[in-house]
């Protein structure tokens, strides 16, 4: 498709341009909804649609009030000057959601990345027994519908894991129960499980181009396996590990179905807060949050692209 040849017929010319127009429209379909929310989030009016004033570019039709609303929503005294920061940090709903999202996301990512990287290294060894079967089990959290995962985890994690109560008579007091459901631990575990397939897939993809003789060389020069792993293998597969970690983080950061089942109101994450926002009181605050999330994903995309280039350079492939 590198340009039209000079001998192209009229029909070919028409098709050539028509095809590009069609592709252009598909790109518009892909990107337009994401771009539309940015100006809408600066709407002065509490609507999801462009007002006439906005379309004629009048300055007072635009405002940042919904961005302030992200900070203020849920605060005890949004107009107070004294203790404004503490109030916001403690009480604002969206701030709490941001804290929850990062807390759960980061811990789940650490868990998923460390276990997932090790497993990917193990799985890519030729002597690994039953590697196909194990691989398909480890990938399954990505395939099983989230509702089933969420319901199952909620159901299983609601069991009382305190062995003292297993043989006790009658009902156990709530504070003596060891339940994983409705705790941060449960959410972190769940999100880690959902993130691991992405880590395995990306790290395995990096390992395909990994030269195994490097490990043998390190071993023959007297490095112990641990040292070999951290000094030789790890730096080379690091781009894969980081992009796997980013995938795991975004999986947790974007996950709402399991949170819907397993989290209390205090443990709401950003997507959970958006979910109830869309369902209950739809206001442009959601659009403001969405705009911020789009900016975050642009940042992530940039990091990933840089990583990909670095990885290709390291592996001696041509830079993209």
């Amino acid at each position, binding site marked *: 498709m590198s340009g039209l040849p000079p001998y192209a017929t009229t029909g070919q010319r028409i098709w050539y341009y028509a095809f590009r127009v069609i592709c252009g429209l598909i790109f518009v379909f892909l990107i337009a909804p*994401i771009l539309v929310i940015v100006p809408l989030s600066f709407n002065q009016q509490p609507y999801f649609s462009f007002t006439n004033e906005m379309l004629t570019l009048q300055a007072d039709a635009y405002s940042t009030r919904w961005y302030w609303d992200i900070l203020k929503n849920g605060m005890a005294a949004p107009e107070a000057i004294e203790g404004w920061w503490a109030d916001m940090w403690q009480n604002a709903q969206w701030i709490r959601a941001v804290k929850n999202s990062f807390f759960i996301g980061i811990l789940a990512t650490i868990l998923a990345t460390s276990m997932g990287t090790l*497993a990917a290294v193990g799985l890519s060894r030729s002597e690994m027994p039953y590697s196909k079967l194990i*691989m398909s089990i480890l990938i399954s959290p990505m395939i099983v519908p989230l509702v*089933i995962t969420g319901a*199952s985890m909620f159901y299983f994690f609601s069991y009382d894991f305190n062995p003292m109560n297993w043989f006790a008579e009658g009902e156990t007091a709530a504070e003596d129960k060891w339940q994983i459901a409705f705790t941060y631990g449960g959410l972190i575990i769940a999100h880690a499980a959902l993130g691991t397939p992405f880590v395995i897939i990306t790290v395995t993809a990096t390992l395909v181009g990994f030269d195994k003789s490097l490990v043998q060389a390190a071993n023959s020069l007297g490095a112990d396996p641990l040292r070999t792993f951290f000094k030789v293998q790890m730096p080379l597969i690091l781009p894969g590990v980081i992009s796997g970690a980013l995938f795991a983080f975004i999986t947790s950061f974007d996950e*709402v179905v399991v949170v819907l089942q397993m989290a209390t109101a205090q443990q709401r994450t950003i997507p959970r807060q958006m979910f109830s926002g869309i369902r209950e009181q739809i206001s442009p605050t959601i659009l403001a949050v969405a705009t911020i999330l789009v900016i975050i994903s642009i940042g992530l995309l940039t990091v990933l692209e840089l990583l990909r280039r670095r990885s290709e350079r390291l592996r001696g492939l041509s830079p*993209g």
Partner: protein
Amino acid sequence: MTDATSKGPLTTADGTPLKRKLEQAMFASRLRAFGLVAPLLAFILAVFVVPITVFMVRGFHNPTYETYMPKSTELLLEWDGVSEPTEEMAAAMVADLIQARADKTIGRAATRVNQEYSGTRSMFTRTARKAAKMEAPFMAALVKAHKNWGKPEVWQAIKVAATSWTPAYFLAALDLKYKGDGSVVWQVEERQIHITLFLRTMEISLIVTLSCFALGFPVAWLLANLKVRTANLLMILVLLPFWTSILVRTTAWIAMLQGQGVVNDLMAFSGLNQVILQFMLLFRDYGDLKLASLCSNDVNGVLATGEATLQTLSAQAADAQTTCAAEMVRIYSASGLEAAVAQAGALKAEALRWGYGDERFSMIYNKTGTLVAMTHILLPFMILPLYSVMKTIPPAYLRAAKSLGATNWTAFWRVYFPQTVPGIGAGSMLVFILAIGYYITPALVGGQDGQMISNFIDFHMRKSLNWSLAAALGGVLLIIVMFLYWLYDRVVGIDNMKFG
């Protein structure tokens, strides 16, 4: 080897046979490899595989009734389900009711029976209140407290509830009913919702997969055949949606498609809505894309002229009327002009609330909305595998075919397209698998007719609290997904899955 065997087995320096030493070394390295995988495998088994298994077992096992009503359970299980319920059973039932009321667990037991036979919840709670004062003969006392105790089918339903290990839920997930006497019949017609739901889920997933293919194929082709630098730039347009939160994209589609949304605004501004309207008038049956504007013509007419419009509408043939017109005419003939105009006002208010006042399409909070938003969300999952396959097809093949005399179409269809089939398979299966279990988008923009099976599972988990039915519905869905996953593994291979 022959050389070695003739001189006896080879040994290492310390005298052990080489073969055994090698086996030991192999075993050790296998163990090391397994040791690397073991933590994650144990983790996934413990927090993912085991919970799902336990939850699926719940679909077969519901001990609620047995736990709270032990005495009657024992007798009910012995009962054949056909003969007349005995006095002994009634006595046990009364004893259980008294005990359960004292323990405050009667509600749970009653809810369980109510799942099998609706209306029995109040029968249980009401009878339990009177149970303490009952005297023999208990059967007569029960019937006196609530006449339904005299029905054999109620006792059969209780027997089903008392059976803790039961196929009833999985059968219910397939619209079958398990009866107390052990027979299985179809659920009554108006309650056969699950099969319809599964079919609708399949239909939505299939349409989404086909739309993703139709939209993804040209884009992947363009990306694979452009210069690397341009392609990478355009790739951002595919990857940005891929990395953007699903909630954000669903919100964005609400802003795009709602009554006063961007798409409707653009169509109203350009007059495109009139073109579509006229076009659709040719086909009276426009199915899903309900055209509220037609309604609004009728509603505005009734509000403006009252009687005259209603007369005109009544004169129309029933199948030519819009739903609003039919409703207003029905009310007009039943309760007169005033009520019909009031209804028109209500419809107008409703239309304005959703923003369909002036000839706008309702494209969100229905199946259309679900389809559009899901296609958008899953499209990158089609484009990326297609692109990575097309990238490996040398463009020289197409040129060779053309130089041998093939037309453009033949060259594409006979030479290029067959080579893209692995990518199509990978993309389609991935999209279909992800679509079939989709929850968020249908829940937020699906309205009534855009709901999928996942939404029902969630409903039974969190609202109706019928966890066993949720588990059974989930089980059926899981079987479908696992089959597709197996197929994907066979056709594509899970180790070939890649992102970006």
